[in-house]
């Protein structure tokens, strides 16, 4: 419980990411619409209730409105138009806040009962903390070791569920340095409310410095390369091996023709699925020989392998 950071204003949440301001603006618009509708209703309700109270025998009750369809179509149309406008606003922003900008750096997050494990590409690891540089977009690739969790950064106005068996992602670009909340927002068992941590946003130089100071056992890709040999992947996926397996050099981000005739882009999820359920997507022209590594790899190890396979795209040199 020592991690909590007191915040400035008890009435308004701090807004500290690139899209937080837009989300708050949408909030204000929703408030305005709600206030307008609610006050209109309240005024009418009180006015009618008081003026037409049974005790007020002098109120004019002649010429009651008989035909109601004009009123009905008026308030139906008005609410509908208002709602459609809000829908478009909310939908556009939603697509934006989940679409990562090009060139964002990747950080891997694994959720497990009841902690967050973070792995940087340089091999730096942290638990229940996430260090990121200010004014730079980062992509978080997230998966769960057990149940469903949800990675929630309230000051950044973003959350996304973290599921077992698949990877999800979000991106964020903090605009202020400081320390911010990290919550698990999806109920995950006993210590759900303690599955919290802090986001530390630093200046670029400070951040590089922090990365350097961490005790590192090689980059994430290098750690992955070790696993690649340890689990015997290199036995098939290297040029010149006896078993013919698809080469992994330059794979990441490229479209892959599959045996079913479809084409899939080799993103994180594709590579992950290929390791865990190799028969789901078989590359055209290859035999479905690869065994499944489901249950043999922890999420952390999977992340390292993923980082290694991805690194082969930038550095297309054959694995040893």
């Amino acid at each position, binding site marked *: *419980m020592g991690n909590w*950071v*007191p915040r400035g204003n*008890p009435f308004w*949440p701090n807004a500290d990411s690139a899209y937080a301001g837009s*989300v708050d603006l*949408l*909030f204000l618009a929703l408030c305005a619409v*709600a206030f307008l509708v*609610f006050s209109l*209703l*309240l005024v*009418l*309700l009180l006015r*009618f*209730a008081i003026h*037409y*109270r*049974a005790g007020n025998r002098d*109120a*004019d*009750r*002649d010429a*009651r*409105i008989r035909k*109601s369809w004009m009123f*009905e179509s008026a308030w*139906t149309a008005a*609410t*509908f138009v208002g*709602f*459609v406008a809000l*829908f478009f*606003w*909310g939908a556009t*922003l*939603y697509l934006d*806040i989940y679409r990562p900008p090009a060139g964002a750096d990747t950080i891997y997050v694994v959720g497990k009962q009841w902690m967050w494990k973070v792995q940087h590409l340089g091999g730096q690891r942290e638990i229940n903390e996430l260090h990121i540089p200010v004014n730079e977009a980062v992509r978080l690739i997230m998966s769960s070791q057990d*149940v469903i969790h949800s990675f*929630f950064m*309230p*000051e950044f*106005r973003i959350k*996304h*569920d973290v*599921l*077992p*068996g*698949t990877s*999800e992602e979000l991106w964020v670009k903090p605009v202020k340095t400081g320390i911010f909340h990290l919550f*698990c*927002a999806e*109920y995950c*068992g*006993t210590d*759900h*409310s303690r599955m919290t941590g802090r986001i530390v946003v630093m200046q670029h130089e400070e951040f590089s410095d922090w990365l350097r100071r961490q005790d590192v056992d090689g980059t994430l890709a290098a750690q992955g390369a070790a696993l690649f040999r340890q689990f015997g992947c290199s036995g098939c996926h290297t040029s010149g091996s006896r078993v013919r397996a698809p080469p992994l050099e330059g794979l990441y981000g490229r479209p892959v023709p599959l045996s079913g005739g479809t084409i899939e882009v080799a993103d994180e999820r594709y590579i992950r699925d290929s390791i865990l*359920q190799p028969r789901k997507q078989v590359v055209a022209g290859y035999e479905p020989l690869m065994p499944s590594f*489901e*249950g043999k790899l922890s999420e952390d190890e999977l992340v390292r392998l993923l980082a290694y396979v991805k690194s082969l795209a930038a550095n297309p040199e054959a694995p040893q």
Partner: protein
Amino acid sequence: MSGDKNYITVNNSIRSWLFTTDHKRVAILYFASITLFFFIGGAAAALMRLELVSPAGHFFTSDEYNRLFTMHGVIMVWFFLIPSIPNTLGNFIVPLMIGARDLAFPRLNLTSWYLFMAGGATTLYALFKGGIDTGWTFYTPFSTMYSNSYVAIAVAGVFIVGFSSILTGLNFIVTIHRLRAPGLTWYRLPLFLWSLYATSAILVLATPVLAMTLLLIALDRVFGIGIFDPARGGDPLLFQHLFWFYSHPAVYIMILPGMGVVSELIACYSRKEVFGYSFVAWSAIAIACIGFFVWGHHMFVSGQSPFAGLVFSFMSFAVAVPSAIKVFNWTATMHKGWVHFDAPMLYALGFIGLFTFGGLSGLFLACLAYDVYVTDTYFVIAHFHYIMVGGMVTAYFGGLHYWWPKITGRMYPEYWARAAAILIFFGFNMTFLPQFILGVLGMPRRYHVYPPEFEIWHVLSSAGASILVVAYALPLFYLGWSIFFGERSSANPWQTTGLEWQTSSPPPPHNFAATPTVTRKPYDFNVNGEPRAQNA
């Protein structure tokens, strides 16, 4: 009251109650049962609010706290809110309102009560044996593979109670179709019946999906079939789709009957027909239909496709339109009416305010980008409590007071009833307004311990809850008192229309001496607010 026996005095043996097929007696059985469940569920809520006064928690472990909110949710949703108005007021009033001697299937009606009790007993057994810690939503794979609690038993209880819902829904649909008195055409039906008809359709269509989903959980837990386990090719998100396919329409199961009650109350105490009758009637049907296509709005951050998110967001805005139509029509009903402020009307006015507030907060959640921020926070808790408690429970109390003279033959004490209505209104707002603020500040739901910066709002909310405890206990006392000492009621104490008011209070065992014939629209008051009799 004449010397003839009414449905209560006709036979006083326990046996005659437990084997009754009289819809009025079954309603009383339901009434006693759900009152019990309301106070069990309420006690769990009170303990949670007590615990949340302090950010670190003092009284319970996290496991105990998790069991408390699960118990609160499971009991309140399936054993109070869903059966509340349909099975008590609906059971009692539907045949009276349409001029019938009973529901279409009286024995099925009693069966549904036994199923309800069997389901309730099973679930209570799980809760007292050690409880369940999954939350009422039973999300997988937590519920299927990771929870060390009595999930299978609790799920079995909810599974059983689902059949009680289905039977009740079926009974109402057939009754409303087949047993209407001569002359009681669809457009002469009181709006309470339109609402219950829409509710029944959802009960019959959606509940089987819940049953199927719960069965899959039990199979997964007991036999490990792995349907929700990604390691065996299963999909945890599939559960959420199935669960919300039932549970979102279930929200309308809970609120539509409340809307029906409020339509009755507003008309009666404004001494005027409901403004835009056919729009209010059809909006209930529209809500029931559109309500089936919004379930994905519970999953905007779950990893479902963003395009599915767009569709569900749009549909969620769309389903708010018929609700808005109702609210405007109720308000317009009072225009040039004769508004009386009896306790049921106070509840009805409270309902309109709280339901509208809760409904408008629903727009925030339907709105994709903002939902990303506030979903799974206290904002959601506050939103659905405004609808379910501020709306539904308020309407239930309003309806209970309104029909109390008919059910018991006694008047409730007006002064106390008004005091309770006002106290509930203020206690409710004090409890749940701070929770909206907590949500906007980013406080996640289902947190046993929380950052101290949220403490002040939690303390305020808990203070409100203590008022609410008193306010909800009040009716138990004065209504209980009135059963024995209340002033005797005439057949039609509110001087209103509606067939149920044209038989004695309490009604005789077979409701009407002769089947009435209906010749007029409902709520047929003249310009001076005097009722014209329904039947010729």
